[in-house]
């Protein structure tokens, strides 16, 4: 019962955040005009609301929800509260693949698929490396993340500088890389929504099996989970979610780290509750962060990744200090 009320509360929070995201912006539009614009008035307001604010809010919600869900899955699988798509380098791998797809001139709908493939390769690599570490995976995962992120960053820089196609739109690509949801088109949103729905569906089905990893992979096996199949499926779901998020918004850090961690204090560690709660809370949080990014220093705009980094990095450090007993 308590779970349902928490989920309802989070859903309500998401609706309120989304409403705020649509109502507030650089151009002041009254609530009545916003409603009219949503339902098809053909003036400037209609364009601003339907083509700019609405896709932007929906995009932020998808990105935040995906990252938080992927974070919850990764933390459970790796038994590591410091894991998320950004910290493990999964997002960087997805970025590299997405940039490579753009350089190769692939059609726009293929970019999320490339990002998914990049995320899958990277997260599998991280999983393998964590396994080498034996019982304590926390440091291994962080180090692997650092290495993979800087490697992917180096290749992305190389691609950006050497590609004629990208040099022309360097500013746009750089903005995307830093984590921005400012220019999202409806077709992009549609493809991403499908990928996210798939990933979230898998996450919900797998959630109770992720619980069994609480005492390690071998105990998960003795509890009746097929470790190879489940691990592959969880990594796949993580990659779908991270890939979609990166395709939409580039590198947005720490949402996947902070949201599941904060939620565990409220609803406990069971992934059956944590996964849906993370999606809702992550979505609401990123919609608000995006609202902050375009109003804090208006009329200028920050990339939303800057906001999440500003809040998330100190949180990460605090967590690192608190969990030092398992880090060594």
């Amino acid at each position, binding site marked *: 019962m308590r779970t349902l009320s928490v989920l309802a509360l989070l859903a309500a929070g998401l609706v309120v955040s989304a409403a705020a995201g649509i109502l507030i912006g650089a151009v002041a539009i009254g609530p009545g005009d916003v409603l009219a614009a949503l339902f098809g008035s053909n003036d400037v307001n209609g364009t601003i609301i339907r083509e700019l604010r609405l896709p932007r809010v929906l995009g932020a919600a998808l990105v935040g929800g995906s990252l938080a869900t992927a974070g919850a899955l990764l*933390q*459970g699988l790796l*038994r*590591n*509260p410091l894991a998320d798509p950004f910290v493990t380098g999964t997002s960087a791998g997805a970025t590299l693949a997405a940039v490579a797809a753009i350089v190769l001139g692939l059609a726009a709908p293929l970019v999320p698929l490339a990002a998914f493939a990049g995320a899958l390769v990277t997260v599998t690599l991280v999983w393998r490396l964590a396994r080498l570490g034996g*019982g304590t995976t926390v440091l291994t995962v962080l180090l692997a993340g650092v290495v993979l992120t800087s490697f992917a960053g180096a290749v992305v820089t190389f691609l950006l500088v050497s590609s004629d196609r990208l040099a022309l739109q360097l500013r746009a690509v750089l903005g995307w890389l830093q984590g921005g949801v400012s220019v999202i088109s409806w077709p992009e949103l549609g493809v991403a929504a499908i990928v996210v729905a798939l990933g979230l569906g898998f996450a*919900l*089905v797998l*959630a*109770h*099996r992720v*619980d*069994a990893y*609480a*005492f*390690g992979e*071998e*105990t*998960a*096996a*003795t*509890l*009746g*989970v*097929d*470790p190879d199949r489940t691990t592959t499926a969880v990594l796949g779901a993580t990659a779908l979610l991270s890939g979609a998020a990166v395709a939409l918004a580039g590198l947005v850090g720490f949402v996947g780290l902070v949201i599941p961690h904060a939620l*565990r*204090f409220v609803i*406990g*560690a*069971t992934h*059956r509750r944590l996964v849906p709660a993370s999606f809702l809370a992550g979505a609401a949080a990123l919609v608000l962060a995006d609202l902050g990014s375009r109003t804090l220093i208006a009329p200028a705009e920050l990339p939303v990744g800057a906001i999440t980094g500003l809040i998330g990095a100190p949180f990460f450090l605090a967590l690192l200090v608190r*969990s030092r007993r*398992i880090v060594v």
Partner: protein
Amino acid sequence: MTTLAATAVTAAYRERVVLRECSFAMGSGEIVAVVGPNGAGKSTLLRVLAGLLRPTAGTVALDGQDLATLSRSQVARRVAVVPQIFDTLFPFTVREVVALGRTARLGSFGRASADDVVAVARAIDELDLAPLASRRVDRLSGGERQRAVLAMALAQEANVLLLDEPTVHLDPGHQLATLVLLRDLATRRQLAVCAVLHDLNLASAFGSRIVVMAEGQVIRDGAPLEVIHADLVTAVFGDGLEVVERDGHPAVLPRIASPR
């Protein structure tokens, strides 16, 4: 009546062969204590019996069925393993940890049936965990946490219970309590229990059978008084230990050389 039997099993980690044509069998109501020096292959035998390590030769059979042909969830309904790691950084409650024992039986999306709820409540009850059921497992003492994972294994309602050094992090009082509990459970639930133990005295006191392993093989298998003898203890563990008999159980004591 359940039986779990390994026949001429050879098992290895990469190139390193740990079990060499090792044979071993156990049945309901027995508490088998596996003892032996470090590196004898005790833990590996347990992992092979749990189906976690595939033998390179030989077979493991659960009630006559080859373990290799059963899925993980089929095995989990019949063989429970008490984990050695019972640390978690996540705030699972004791009840949630015990409920993990039902993983193999849950419906889709992890829905619990009435049977699941009853099994969890019974395991919590049997290990006196009711007062702790809503507490966070990461905030319990080592002994309490261990009881929680033992309850998790019981909630599996398996017929076979495997434990690798269940007393290793416990003080003597808790060691004794754990083994008394295991003996009661084995009798009450008619479990086949196999525990790797380092302490020969605890093994003698609680094992209905003692299995001595050395160099990847079972070298002795029988009732404590038949197995734990001075020559065997010297042969397996080296000089410096003596065996005395007390109340029908053998006891192994260090022979302390007087300073010259």
